[in-house]
């Protein structure tokens, strides 16, 4: 009797499981991916018709990194805005957002859902290095474009085996190079203390900085790291203060950025030149610290910060604000992540416009063949450029200094390609 019950229970359990799977979505979808004819013969037209184009994106809407989830709102708002104006080349964009909670296995699941079930044309943006690294092999094997990933790890552009994946934002090494160039000119004998997040982001930027200052008079004299799960970085800041360095390079994400800026302001005995990395440079990070405490802080950027009053009358910024108010009323237009999503989405728009064939191959080639493409949300002088062997669209950044209540751009936009050459593979 006992055996029967167990077996029956097991059978019931597996039946329930299968039912759950079946209910979760209809079965079916034989792999009949469509192919084009004519000049684009044999290329994949999955997810794209004359009237629609299906895109998917994977963001952490829940979990520890959910602060970045709002990027998806900027992207959605952009596509809705474009759809209302007639779509991209007459095609209505259907943008599906999936949540991976910043967990790589979940990202794999969602990427497969988007590709195999939703049949998207491209997976536009996966957020975070771990999630992107977990899915790019799969997407490459399936020959699905993965344009403009929302992470600045240098590996997206230096890898030769994933032609379907491209970065978007300036990679962390490029950003480090901008700071290195600035210091070489301004403080050629600087001693630098570094606070960095202990992950790919922090290490990439720190490594890039060290490489860029190698051979100059600039020395990194102290490094402290923190985990994203740490409550605060104040102990690390006290340790860094011991180094008496002239420069503090602050490689953090927003909350920790605020904490480090506040700790620096509080310590009246140590007054280094504070360079805060782009991720934490938003006015929304600086404001809680108090503008009077962050005067003279230096950073670099490549897109317009919606919280910065100097863009208040900018045409694109106005469109952005109106669209966000209309299509994503629960989101905060002043949040720079929304603007980031908007800028990335309009970059994709340009790439889609440039496709020779309305196919996945067409998008892949278009994304790898951008020549000084201007995007209105990016800073003047910052354009998208890629090549068959160059998957970094943006490698130009502009330095800025915080004065009064706003960032003041200074100097010319720094094209790190010209200054330092391409990244070593």
């Amino acid at each position, binding site marked *: 009797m*006992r055996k*029967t019950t167990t077996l029956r*229970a097991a059978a019931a*359990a597996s039946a329930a499981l299968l039912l759950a799977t*079946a209910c979760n979505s209809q079965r079916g979808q034989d792999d009949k991916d469509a192919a084009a004819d004519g000049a684009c013969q044999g290329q994949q037209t999955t997810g794209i018709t004359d009237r629609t184009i299906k895109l998917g994106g994977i963001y952490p809407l829940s*979990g520890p990194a959910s602060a970045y989830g709002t990027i998806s709102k900027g992207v959605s708002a952009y596509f809705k805005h474009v759809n209302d104006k007639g779509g991209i080349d007459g095609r209505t964009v259907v943008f599906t957002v999936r949540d991976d909670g910043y967990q790589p296995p979940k990202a794999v699941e969602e990427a497969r859902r988007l590709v195999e079930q939703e049949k998207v044309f491209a997976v536009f943006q996966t957020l975070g290095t*771990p999630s992107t690294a977990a899915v790019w092999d799969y997407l490459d094997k399936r020959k699905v474009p993965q344009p403009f990933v929302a992470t600045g790890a240098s590996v997206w552009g230096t890898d030769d085996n994933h032609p379907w994946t491209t970065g978007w934002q300036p990679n962390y090494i490029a950003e480090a190079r901008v700071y290195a160039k600035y210091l070489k000119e301004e403080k050629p004998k600087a001693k630098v203390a570094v606070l960095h997040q*202990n992950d790919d982001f922090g290490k990439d930027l720190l490594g890039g900085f060290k490489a860029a200052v190698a051979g100059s008079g600039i020395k990194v004299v102290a490094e402290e790291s923190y985990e994203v799960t740490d409550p605060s970085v104040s102990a690390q800041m006290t340790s860094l203060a011991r180094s008496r360095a002239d420069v503090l390079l602050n490689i953090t994400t927003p909350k920790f950025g605020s904490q480090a800026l506040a700790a620096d302001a509080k310590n009246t005995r140590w007054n280094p030149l504070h360079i805060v990395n782009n991720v934490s440079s938003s006015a929304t990070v600086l404001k809680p610290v108090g503008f009077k405490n962050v005067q003279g802080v230096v950073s670099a950027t490549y897109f317009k910060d919606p919280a910065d009053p100097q863009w208040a009358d900018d045409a694109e910024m106005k469109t952005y604000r109106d669209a966000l108010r209309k299509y994503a009323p629960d989101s905060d237009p002043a949040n720079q992540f929304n603007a980031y999503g908007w800028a990335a989405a309009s970059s994709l728009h340009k790439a889609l416009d440039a496709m020779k064939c309305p196919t996945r191959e067409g998008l892949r080639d278009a994304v790898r063949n951008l020549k000084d493409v201007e995007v209105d949300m990016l800073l003047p002088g910052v354009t998208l450029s890629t090549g068959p062997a160059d998957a970094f669209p943006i490698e130009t950044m502009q330095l800025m200094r915080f004065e009064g209540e706003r960032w003041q751009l200074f100097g010319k936009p720094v094209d790190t390609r010209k200054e330092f050459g391409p990244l070593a593979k």
Partner: protein
Amino acid sequence: MSTITATLDTDRARRLRLALTALLAAVVTVGAPFYFAPFQVFQLTMVLLYAVALAGLNLLVGFGGQISLGHGAFFAAGAYTAAVMLDRYDTGHLATLPVAAVGCFLLGLGFGVPALRLRGLYLALVTLSFAVFLPPLLKRLEPVTGGSMGLTVDKLQPPAWSGLAEDQWTYFVVLAVTAVALLLARNLLRSRVGRALLAVRDNESAAEVMGVRLSLHKTLAFAWSALFAGVSGCVYTWVIGFVSPDSFSFVLSITLLAGLVVGGLASLYGPLLGAAFVMYVPSVAQDISEAAPGVVFGLLIIAVMFVAPTGLAGLAGRVRGAAVSRLTRTTSAAGDRTPGSEPSAPPTPADPAPVDAEPVGAPPRTEKE
């Protein structure tokens, strides 16, 4: 009533039914990868592999009464063992399984010794801090583990003779591992070790008086449980092909424990249900509310615990128990009824698991003063 049942429930009928159920279960599990789309087969594979980890945790928490919030660490150890072996030594997938299993068994044994001194809450929180410590440690050991960028390794590939797609092959391999693991868990519980564990959980002093060697069995429970988690982690690497330190944060450990409790403690198929919950419910939550999937997911956990305080496995038993008692009542009222139908069998204990001495999800009490 009972006489009718008894006559009908003869040996032959029972054996027939047993065979039929087994056949049905086999057909369903084997047929699934051919019926469902590859993406759904992948989801089922993930459910199976999480079930292995939960079954291991169940040994410790459900049957051993020791709470661990650190099983994500053993899972990670198994996953990294496989990934490092594949990445550096190119050993082939199958070779990684025994190494991960033995490695985690030893790790669990090592951890089980200090765990002997700790009880309830204290054990839970010490294991939690172990899970918190692991990701930075993995990042530090960069030369071996690939640091925070993690390691990308080859997934399982179907051999040419099988004629199966990658997902189908992976599913069958994982199914085999899971089946063996669940059988092993069941047999463990029926062995001396299992009976000793139950005795210890229910009354330590009494068990000790009866001659159960407390320390040995508690340590072994930890080791076995770590072994299961390690095997699960190893299989995870085969399926996902990517490991990184932040994949194995302490949230994973808490998710595993939550999955187990939601599925049903001290039940043999609770781990399967719990794994399905962990796998499917977050996506369901997002389908319900795009804006904040976490709100829905949190509510769903609470709701399940309201409806089924002893877990989903217990729920099935309770619903059936209620149905049976109601049916029995109606049938007795009707007086005459076609006999032998399933529900008129004498009410089975709520828990169909073999460990019928204990109600499902009996409280592994935390220490109270």
